[in-house]
């Protein structure tokens, strides 16, 4: 089971498709959900996802503006993709037949 926050971050990484690192993930999350994560929260989530082996780290090419150091990118693992699939299925099943209108009746 993914938590909501984990779900959002995973999805952002998937959307970024290979260009996911701290700055871009944070930006993507903001664009998708409107939520602003601090880097502390973001890295906590990333660490959690990594320990569940849903994402993995990848070192990018050396970047001249960082003195030749490599950026750490994040990619979904096969498990990660599977859990996203599982999440969406589950989401549909749980919310089946329902819409915002369902809660309007008092």
């Amino acid at each position, binding site marked *: 089971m993914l938590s909501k926050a984990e779900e959002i971050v995973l999805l952002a990484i998937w959307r970024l498709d290979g260009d996911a690192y701290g*700055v871009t993930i944070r930006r993507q999350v903001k664009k998708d959900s409107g939520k602003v994560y601090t*880097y502390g*929260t973001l890295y906590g989530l990333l660490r959690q996802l990594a320990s569940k082996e849903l994402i993995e780290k990848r070192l990018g090419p050396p970047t001249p503006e960082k003195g030749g150091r490599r950026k750490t990118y994040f990619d979904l693992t096969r498990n990660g993709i599977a859990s996203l699939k599982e999440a969406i299925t589950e989401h549909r099943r749980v919310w089946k037949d329902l819409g915002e209108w369902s809660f309007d009746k008092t």
Partner: protein
Amino acid sequence: MSTRPPRLAESLMRRLSWPEDRESLLDNLAEEYGERAAARGPKRAGWWYRFQAAKSALPLIGFETYWRTVMFSHYLKTAFRHHRKQRNYFLINLAGLAIGLAACLFIMLWVQDEVGFDACHNRLDDIYFVVQYRPDDPGRTGPSLPAPLIPELKATRPEIERAARYLDARRRLFSVGDKTAYESSGGFADPELFDIFSFSSLASDPKTALKDPNTIVLTQSLARRYFGAADPVGKTVKLENRYVFTVGAVLEDIPGNSTVRFDYLLPFENFGRFDGVELDNWGRYEGYLGFVTLNRNVRPDSFSDKIRDELRRHEDPAHKPTFLKLHPLKGIRLRGFNHDGTKTSVWMFSAIAALVLLIACINFVNLTTAQAVKRAAEIGLRKVVGASKTVIRRQIYTELAVVVTAAFFVAIGLVAAFLPKLNALSGKTIAFSPAGKTGLVVIVLGLAVFTAAVSGLYPAFCLSSLRPSRAMKPSASTGSSRSPFRKSLVVVQFAISVVLIISTFVFSLQMRYIKRKELGFDKAHLMYLELSENLKTRFDGVKQELLRNPEIRGVTTSVSLPANALNLAGGLDWEGRPADVEGQLNFVSVDKDYFQTVGIEFVEGGTFQSTARNQRLDEFIVNEKAVEAMKVGNPMGRSFKMWDRPPGRVIGIVKNVHNAPLYQDIRPAFYVQFPAFYNYLILNVKSERLPQTIDFIRDVYEKVNPEYPFEVHFLDEAIDRYYQSEAQRGSLITAFTGLALFISCLGLFGLSLFLTEQRTREIGIRKTLGATASHLVGLMLKDFLWLVALANLVAWPAAYYVMKTWLQKFAYRISLGPSIFLISGLTVMAVALATAGFRAVKSALANPVHALRQV
């Protein structure tokens, strides 16, 4: 990226982030910071960075603690399982450590008491003694001053803010109604003492009270003793059956570690009244303490220079010059006036505390590493499934923490339980409640953590670096009995024990030597009473009365007790005195039967001829030391002059007797009949039928002196009191030595338990092949024997040095023969062998079938 992110925020992020993500996190922050700086200026970007850092801190810490807690509860669980499985070792470790910590805690309480002497006075830093000193004799700095000096200084020197004199009042007869007893802890003082020191008052103002010469100030406990729950203020107290005082104020009890300490206080004028001293006499030096505080902006050393010559103005110019200076109250307990304070003892006890704790630590290390063998498989497995060194280390530290925490609480309990006993042993009044001494408890907690950290260091590193491939093999022998590290620790441990035992041994031998030393007079048969006024005036009659009893061999009187007859008198002169010899000798006032009664033999001449009670001071007797000091060859028949009296003659020379405590050499002394200075009635009594004799003395006494309680003392008890503080220190050291040896043996017991367990099968096989039990025991003990022997070799020189230094204190001391060292060494060896042998014998006698069937 010309600008750098804010440093503080950056280092905070660096500190908080996980090592593996650190670079990446910082890079990302820096990147966005760069973008923001380019778009909206570095200032706003800087603030953004700081907010990011601040908001990130909490989640970062949160995640971290969560995982730590998960792991910690796991460690805790395994630690409990481990200790339950190894119950024996756990108990041994716990006991050793708890005792070690308790000893440490007590010594720290003791040291705190000593170091914090006078800390109860708010103005401690500002209080100074006025002392006299002699430039040519730096060892003589001290409080010996003419009585009018302090009032005069106060009156003439504007630099002085407050000044007061204080003098211990000796034993005085104290009576309230029909309650009568001697009180030995009181003082004479000037009212400003209360401005200088912080004594808190319970009822009315003590300062105003002391201004009235007929008022007495009591402490709470003394007041309770005489007045019970009633309010004592305004009631009367009678001293020495003559002087009546009204209670003016009641103080809280003075803390045990205050230099100025009393149960009651009288105005200083009464010192003159009681002891017949003229308080305006500049020629007489009294041993009172003169305290001053200075006004702001006055530097004590420059003030010292100003009053330096004050004494010269009032002094007889023929004497060697004495000067005045200020000496701070702070540190007086530790350093004394002449470096004769308790500093050495404080160091010694701190060292002992450290050593005891070290021994406990060594136990810990030894037992933990020894068990490494048993745990090798467990740790190997943990490593195989992915535990890092750090994880193993944390696990081991958690196990230690469990023991240490338990030991900490046991130690606190032990100290609380045994404190009254230890107080009695050390002559202190330390109170201990963990709540009241938070600082100290924190220190001990720190000590416990430190102990755990230090003693865990080696086991943690040794175990965590086991290689799993080797550890899992059954033959793995890391940390076996052949470990040189563990052996050297055992050697250290026993070396410490040997040093302590030798010290105890030398200590008690020296004390026994002092007790038994022939002092040159008949100390075993001497008893004494204090002379009251009544007895003094009717002394001759009382003496005749007493001598009628055949059990009493002699009766005499003296200013001081024969074993401590020091009372330096200056202003003497004798015929032919060389100019460079100062006219001073110790002055002992006695009557003519003194020598015969006390048992001092004459070398030449004889005792006083006149029975004069007219204070003529014309017959003098000197001891052999004085003959040397006078430097006139044989002084017999020479004229001898005391102060401003007409000269008399030397009529006898007596043998040297020990007239000073044995720290010091025999002092040159002269004896004279001077009835104004008789303080004691001394009796020589046959030791048979002692109770009847004492009853007889009581009857005579009570006839003359009905209002004074009868108290007769034995001289040798009084002599023992001179060495009381030394003896107290001795018994403390003995106690801690016992503890140290006990902890060492606990460790050794644990180790032998472990080693014999390891060798169970080997012993079984040997036994089946025909080895005898004694052979097997020898086999197992051989190792320990070597270790303890080695420990002795290490310990002897150290102990020799330490005890040699200590013995320097005594002018009369035992010699450090080899037998002391051999006996101590053998004792330790015997104890060690008994400890280790207990297990060895048990396993050697066991049925080999059981041993072999195991595993």
